[in-house]
């Protein structure tokens, strides 16, 4: 793994350590492609949800169901976590492991709170007779939201694993791409949420 020439460097580390090796560049590009692929995955699920959201089988409709204040709060949390994760990357670029770990730690903490809120929300819905199997609306709702939630969960575990690695190995041209890619992932999950918030929740509020 040859470290390529660099013009600027911070404390012995290239300025953008995640792109310093071909391996790192490959990883980041490949991950972008993966995110592009995920776009059509979520698009399919959103389309399915839009097609099926009217099929409530006499269960509660989106308008009756959704708990907007809570969802708005969850949105705020997730947006904030996007900011904290990018601040972590800033720390990485400055070669400050502690800052990186701190911000990443806050990020997954926020992620966990988001998940907690979501689980609580789903339990409420289930009480009102809106479950994965109650109707086509329920199925498509939980598939979309569940897939997103699953992504958040995976992200939390993944970043946790990376933090352990970061502890052990520090910021190197080998670990930097991993941090970077994880933060890309986190932003992407956020982007998806923006759409879910708009298409599922906000549009669900329009009777």
């Amino acid at each position, binding site marked *: 793994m*040859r470290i*390529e*020439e*660099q*013009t*600027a460097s911070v404390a012995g580390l290239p*300025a*953008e350590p995640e*792109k*310093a090796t*071909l*391996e790192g*560049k490959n990883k980041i*590009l490949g991950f*972008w*492609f993966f*995110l*592009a*692929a995920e*776009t*059509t995955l*979520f*698009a*399919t699920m*959103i*389309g*399915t949800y*839009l*097609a099926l959201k009217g099929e409530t089988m006499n269960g509660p409709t989106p308008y009756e169901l959704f708990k*907007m204040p809570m969802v*708005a709060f969850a*949105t*705020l949390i997730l*947006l*904030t976590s*996007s*900011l904290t*994760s*990018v*601040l972590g*990357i*800033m720390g990485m*670029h400055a070669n400050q492991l502690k800052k990186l770990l701190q911000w990443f730690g806050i990020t997954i903490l926020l992620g966990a709170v988001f998940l907690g809120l979501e689980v609580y929300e789903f339990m409420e819905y289930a009480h009102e007779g809106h479950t994965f199997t109650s109707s086509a609306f329920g199925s498509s709702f939980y598939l979309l939201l569940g897939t997103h939630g699953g992504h958040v969960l995976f992200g939390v575990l993944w970043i946790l694993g990376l933090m352990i690695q970061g502890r052990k190995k520090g910021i190197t041209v080998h670990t930097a791409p991993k941090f970077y890619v994880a933060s*890309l992932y986190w*932003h*992407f999950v*956020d*982007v998806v949420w*923006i*759409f879910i*918030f*708009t*298409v599922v929740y*906000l*549009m669900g*509020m*329009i009777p």
Partner: protein
Amino acid sequence: MEANTQPTQAQTGKQDSGLKYVASFALMILLTAVAFAAVAMNIVPQGWVIPLILVLAAVQVFLQLFTFMHLDLKKDAVTVSFMVTGLFIGVVCAVAVAILV
């Protein structure tokens, strides 16, 4: 694996600035709030609410891509074109599935 046609670009000196992130974060919160308000309150004409909130969401996506995710139109042309293609195909498919059933 040194075969590599894209030698690292000289760093343009464009350093990360926390301020930029915080600003775009604030903007995103604002946009979300506007969307929320558009739906909750009667401030936008009926037929315009959905287009408006979709546009607001789209703006946020681009904010994320180009600030938080550090995309650069020139340096990452390949990446940008893939993301745009993915979004385009995704929108076509989602709209078709939603209306053609």
